């Protein structure tokens, strides 16, 4: 058995810490910043962690934003998530809604849009192959990026 003093201490601890927790969760939620730090892609072939800050940051590889966010080139409107323009699955002849915000559907009917998987694979592997750094794609290299 515990004393009344110990019981009151436990009640006090529970109430005060609950208040602190509510304040912390409400006032300091873990939200994604405007420019991502890291992005975790949950794919059917395991997760892939992309370190956005290291690729884009001055202390990292100092890539230009438009090296990856390539369309429209030089326009801040290009600073969106890859999947905004490259959907998970692309039906033939279908254009993502994002394209139709600026383009007439008929004008871009014959413009091929890569699916997100193809776009990311191409974007990552082309760049790594060009600079000969980091994981390079070949027949047995899935597990160099994918945590399978």
């Amino acid at each position: 058995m515990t004393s009344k003093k110990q019981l009151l201490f436990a009640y006090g601890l529970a109430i005060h810490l609950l208040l602190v927790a509510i304040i912390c969760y409400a006032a300091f939620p873990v939200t994604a910043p405007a420019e991502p730090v890291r992005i975790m892609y949950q794919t059917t072939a395991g997760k892939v962690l992309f370190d956005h800050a290291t690729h884009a940051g001055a202390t990292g590889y100092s890539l230009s934003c438009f090296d990856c966010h390539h369309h429209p080139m030089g326009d801040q409107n290009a600073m969106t998530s890859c999947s905004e323009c490259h959907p998970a699955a692309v039906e033939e002849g279908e254009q993502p809604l994002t394209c139709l915000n600026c383009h007439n559907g008929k004008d871009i009917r014959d413009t091929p849009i890569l699916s997100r998987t193809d776009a990311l694979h191409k974007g990552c592997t082309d760049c790594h192959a060009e600079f000969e750094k980091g994981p390079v794609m070949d027949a047995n290299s899935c597990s160099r990026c994918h945590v399978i």
Partner: protein
Amino acid sequence: MNPKKTLLVSHAPFWHDGGGIPERSYHTLLAALPAACAGIAFYGAPALGVICLSISTAILWELLMNRIMRRPITVGDGNAALVGLLLAMLLPASAPWWVVVLGTFLAIVIGMQIFGGIGGNPFNPVVLGTAILSVAYGRHLDFDAGLVNFTFTAFASSTDPISALKAFGPEAVSHLRYLDLFLGKQVGGIGSTCGAAIVLGGIYLIFRGFIRWEISIAFLASVYLSAALFNMADPTRFAPPLFHLVTGYTLIGAFFLATENSSSPVNLFPMLIYGALGGVLTVLIRNIGAYTDGVLFAILVINLTNPLVDKIRPRAIGKAA
């Protein structure tokens, strides 16, 4: 094992030395605080939120269960608060509130109260709660996925070293310095990364007699030796033993989880066997098993062996194994 002279009983009157469960709980809580504070320093207010919510809800779950089961109120003994703190220390700072509340429910209610409360639990409630969470809600306990929005400028790597080892092999973590890892400069649980603080807390508990050094040392020595054997067999596939000691849940497991009173043995050889088995299983799961960190499942398995190793003669006094 107690020295024989402490078992000699003289005639009454007796004098209680003032020790008890609240003393044990609050001293253990105090010993764990430096590591938890290191986590708050690394991850900020979100980590504080997880720790406070975990301690608070653990106390409230125990209080609720005491009321429902019409048993004496036991929250005053501090054990629920300790369970809450240790559970929070294993979680990432990004853990949503409902994961924390569910985790304390699993630890307090499923892990302890349904077995009759403190002393009756066959498994360490903290480990049981976290293991269920990691199986059921793996993404929320995945440090790499959960902590994507945190910046770790002071760390040599912004990925969980034990996950990187599992996925990409020892070469991916070869640039990490063991001292940095030991000082907590690694991605991981709120209170499980700062090895220096955990060891300090563990040594304090050992010297005060709240935990037994035999379990901790056997666990750590066993992790070191089995990891060294793997490393000697194939250094390209298996990391050096020191890496296993300073990453994942190894240190918090050795000092704060495997040593839990109810689920660990009491005599010398059983404690050594129990700890050594835990270390071997940890390395086996990490090196050739499916899970990233083997500590949780290794401790659950050695908890299962506890009644068995307690039967080794001389049998543990007062344990109904």
